């Protein structure tokens, strides 16, 4: 009896969460990176809150984006190197669903902690508490998009030895719309203006990526495994 799609999702996510639990020191690296980058700005620019407040949305968003990129390299590589991915492509189950499950888990481990931590970091950069919700919301939509886009790039470059630079070159230009709308939403919120437009666009981007992304991932992964 073959497991259904939901069971398949649960199985892959359960496996990845269990693996993450066994080496959590690697899992929290993106979060630490995010906090370090954002705390460096007051030291390098100026501790004056007025000045920091102006650049805060951009700083938080760029840091979140780079932190998301940091964790991508190890998204598929271990499974490809130890032969697990080969077994998955031969399992007779849809590879797109399995890779989507891996991507969702990746977001839970690398994206969600940043979303939770962002208001704290924002406050340190002088952002008023009224913007917390928009900041966390835009990051939640945005980092999820970044995870899906990044997973496509990771699947494409996984067969390339030391492909992390290639991965960044490939993925960063595609991530620009997410960065622009995300930072814009937070900026508008700080000026007290309506933020619906950029947030809606972020949501639309996420829906687009999540509906088409898994098929792109699966196609890219099949090419990467066939070497």
């Amino acid at each position, binding site marked *: 009896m073959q497991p259904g799609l939901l069971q398949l999702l649960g199985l892959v996510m359960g496996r990845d969460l*269990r693996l993450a639990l066994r080496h959590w020191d690697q899992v929290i690296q993106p979060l630490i990176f995010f906090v370090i980058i954002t705390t460096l700005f007051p030291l390098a620019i100026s501790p004056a809150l007025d000045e920091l407040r102006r650049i805060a949305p951009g700083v938080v968003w760029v840091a979140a984006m780079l932190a998301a990129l940091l964790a991508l390299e190890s998204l598929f590589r271990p499974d490809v190197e130890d032969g697990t991915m080969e077994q998955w492509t*031969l399992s007779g189950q849809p590879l797109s669903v399995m890779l989507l499950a891996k991507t969702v888990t990746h977001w839970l481990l690398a994206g969600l902690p940043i979303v939770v931590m962002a208001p704290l970091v924002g406050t340190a950069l002088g952002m008023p508490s009224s913007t917390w919700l928009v900041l966390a919301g835009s990051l939640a939509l945005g980092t999820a998009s970044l995870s899906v886009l990044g997973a496509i790039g990771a699947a494409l470059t996984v067969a390339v030895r030391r492909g992390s630079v290639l991965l960044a070159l490939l993925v960063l230009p595609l991530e620009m719309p997410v960065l622009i709308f995300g930072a814009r939403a937070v900026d508008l919120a700080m000026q007290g203006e309506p933020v619906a437009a950029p947030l809606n666009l972020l949501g639309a981007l996420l829906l687009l990526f999540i509906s088409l992304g898994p098929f792109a991932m699966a196609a890219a992964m099949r090419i990467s495994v066939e070497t």
Partner: protein
Amino acid sequence: MSETPDPNRARLEVRSLHLWRGDRHLLRGVSLTVEAGELLQIMGPNGVGKTSLLRCIAGLLPMETGEVEWRGQSIQRSRETYCQQLAYLAHFNALKADLTAIENLRYGVGLRRQVSTEQLRGILERMQLAACTELPVRALSAGQKRRLAIARILLTDALLWVLDEPITNLDAAGIALFEGCMAEHVARGGLILTAAHQQLLQGRPNVRTLELN
């Protein structure tokens, strides 16, 4: 011979398969068939293309020309049903070092069919890995890891086994155990295609050897 081939009969047929790796013409028109209840052993020196041939047959490597047919249908066209009846053992064991033996089996087999904990424990017992059930795989020896990978093949319940150097790292007892499993599979009407440097199941009637050179 005028008998019409039964389309439901399990049969793997490879016809004039050619493969280039870079500018090397590695496989030059390999043809083979494996019938139900047969074991075909591919032998040949290192680097002759045994692994590439098996990967082509498993559908992991696109071939230049040629045809691989399962039950009379090209495997490209009936990929999903083919995969469901195929168990492939590669050089890599596809095990996670951080997961325990039983977790590795559960996740490895669970993608393809539902298995109970009793089944998992039973197969670990059979492969003489019962003592390692709750140990992380990183603590296992190379031979024990291979036994665990073989346990996955056994649990998959596939009709066609494609095994690449299955007895690597196995000790004499392990080889005997595995030969017993293979004999059982063949007796049940299963098909086995394997690449090995050593004759397996020597002297049995339904075991054939193909030399690659």
